[in-house]
């Protein structure tokens, strides 16, 4: 997108149009100041092309150094890629499964996955009264102190910091 063709007055790039280029530069610096009036007159005739304002790419805008970009991206990725796998056993089945707790938003999400994984419907602490009769299994967990508790009584984050493994036991207790 050249501008050269569209300018009116001094469009030819001859050095004679630009005194600064025809003799010793240092002494001409003063003379350049006097040209500013001519320049203003000449330039006010030709208008600029604002038709295509450029949109910058993410590789060079905004102007932050690559080392900071990398650090910010790494911090984001760490949040995405952290995992916390725990063992899950179903009573009566000797071979267990493993499940990434951090891939779930909370208890509801976890129960949904387990229901699907073990092809059953699982009871946990926060379920409504009338659903109880439908459940075949109960979800329990072993905490850091070795005690077995029903899943769902404590906030999700607290559960994540204390759970060691999960067990799905039969509901006919």
């Amino acid at each position, binding site marked *: 997108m050249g501008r050269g063709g569209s300018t009116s007055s001094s469009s030819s790039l001859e050095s004679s149009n630009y005194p600064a280029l025809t003799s010793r*530069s*240092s002494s001409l610096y003063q003379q350049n100041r006097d040209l500013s009036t001519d320049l203003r007159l000449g*330039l006010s005739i*030709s208008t*600029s092309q604002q038709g295509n304002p450029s949109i910058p790419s993410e*590789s060079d805008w*905004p102007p932050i150094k690559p080392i900071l970009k990398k650090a910010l991206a790494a911090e984001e990725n760490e949040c995405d890629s952290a995992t916390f796998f725990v063992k899950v056993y179903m009573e009566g089945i000797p071979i267990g499964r493993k499940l990434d707790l951090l891939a779930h938003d909370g208890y509801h999400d976890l129960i949904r996955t387990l229901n699907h994984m073990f092809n059953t419907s699982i009871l946990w602490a926060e379920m409504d009264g009338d659903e109880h009769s439908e459940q075949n299994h109960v979800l329990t967990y072993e905490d850091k102190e070795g005690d077995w508790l029903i899943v769902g009584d404590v906030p999700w984050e607290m559960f994540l910091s204390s759970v060691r493994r999960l067990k799905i036991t039969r509901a006919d207790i």
Partner: protein
Amino acid sequence: MLRMASSFPEEVLEHVFSFIYDDKDRNAISMVCKSWYEIERWCRRRIFVGNCYAVSPPMVIRRFPEVRSVELKGKPHFADFNLVPEGWGGYVYPWIAAMATAYPWLEEIRLKRMVVTDEALELIAKSFKNFKVLVLSSCEGFSTDGLAAIAANCRNLKELDLRESEVDDLSGHWLSHFPDSYTSLVSLNISCLGSEVSFSALERLVGRCPNLRTLRLNRAVPLDRLANILCRAPQLVELGTGTYSAELQPDVFSSLAGAFSGCKELRSLSGFWDAVPGYLPAIYPICPSLTSLNLSYATIQSTDLTKLVSQCQSLQRLWVLDYIEDIGLEALAAFCKDLRELRVFPSEPFAQEPNVSLTEQGLVSVSEGCPKLHSVLYFCRQMTNDALATIARNRPNMTRFRLCIIEPRAPDYITLQPLDDGFGAIVEHCKDLQRLSMAGLLTDRVFEHIGNHAKKLEMLSVAFAGDSDLGLHHVLSGCENLRKLEIRDCPFGDKALLVNAAKLETMRSLWMSSCSVSFGACKLLGQKIPRLNVEVMDERGPPGSRPESCPVEKLYIYRTVAGPRFDMPGFVWTMDEDSALRLS
């Protein structure tokens, strides 16, 4: 006058000159008369070359035969933002090779934005017996093998600073190359390295160097090892932590807090990758004496940031992410009355919508509350002319003002006007302004203000601004002290450049990319002004294969006494008398 000058014996003059360190003063001395020039050149010990292509190694060596300290800068500043393609240049090897024979007593090498190879590092390691200081700022091209050579051979090394360089990180083993007998380390900055160094080697190194005052660790050093390192160096003045994140454990916390309390001289902190709020209180005891705090990698939120800065009453420099928000900056303004420099970086630079409540108000608060504030770098998403004018009136002592609004060409968000008047107020009130970066919607008027008022301005950065060549003309004809001008994505063409061609010889360099300067104008400039290198960068192919009126992609013009360079890659052409004839 001349008689007086030559009546002093040389030894006396040399002794007097030895008290003069500043380059400008030294240059002035050398211009008094021929004999002073001669005496001065033999006793100049430190040289600074702002553009490594402005002069050649043999020229420097011929004039200054007894140099002990060299500082060189290579690529243009916009290389920091990926605007200079790979392979452009800035190779340091020719300098090292020439200095290896000419300056066997060289002690210090400081490089910025240069390509440094392992060969160059190995040559440094074996050529300079009294080598003391190596600073590689934003450099690239070398690996940890080169560092191993430095560590193994430089017996008198005091400073090894790799700030922000891109290193080919083969392994952390290089650190173990410092021999057991090596004890002279004063400053070590490895914060840019990715791989793990041997922690026991690091601890032993720190433990046996009693003069260590600066230690900037890399992210791979875990938090639970920090206390041990600190206990071995309680005399530290500047510390960069590694990862500042771990499971909250009382014993780890208490040994860390204890270690920090033991460092009574600590004045500067940095690092803090992945910082967790739970471990921040470990540094509270030393906060009141901190003068410099770099939290650019700390993703902690505004409540914790506010609590932290409120305790740092001696703070002079703060670098932080925009998580600090306006509320944190208000606390900064209230508690940190000695603040001189503030940099606020964007936590989510590519998000369209703001993720934090950081606006123009935060900067206004700091400008009101901190009377010594003179250096600002601020990334935000909105600005007004009023806010800029308030900042200007509050802080006429501002010397460096760099604003970046994430959205290019963003107007005053309240009046929807360009930000011309706001920046006009900045240059009008801040008479000592040396460096300016502008942002937002700007017309030719802002350049008129700059040309009229910014008489002390030395460096100007412009992006997505202006309407016509008049804008560029105002700057080139009005800013008497302009040394560096960098422009991207502005509608500036041939006229202003050609009319002000003589000005270019008084500046260090001019960068223009994605503007409208034609190939023909570049050829003309290159032909007519011999002491300028006019370099055209175009990855589309030779500029001669397109019409003369076609604008070039990138243009880098710099003054030089060394003539055109010969180490250019295929996408860079120098416009001079010979090449212009060859290309047309």
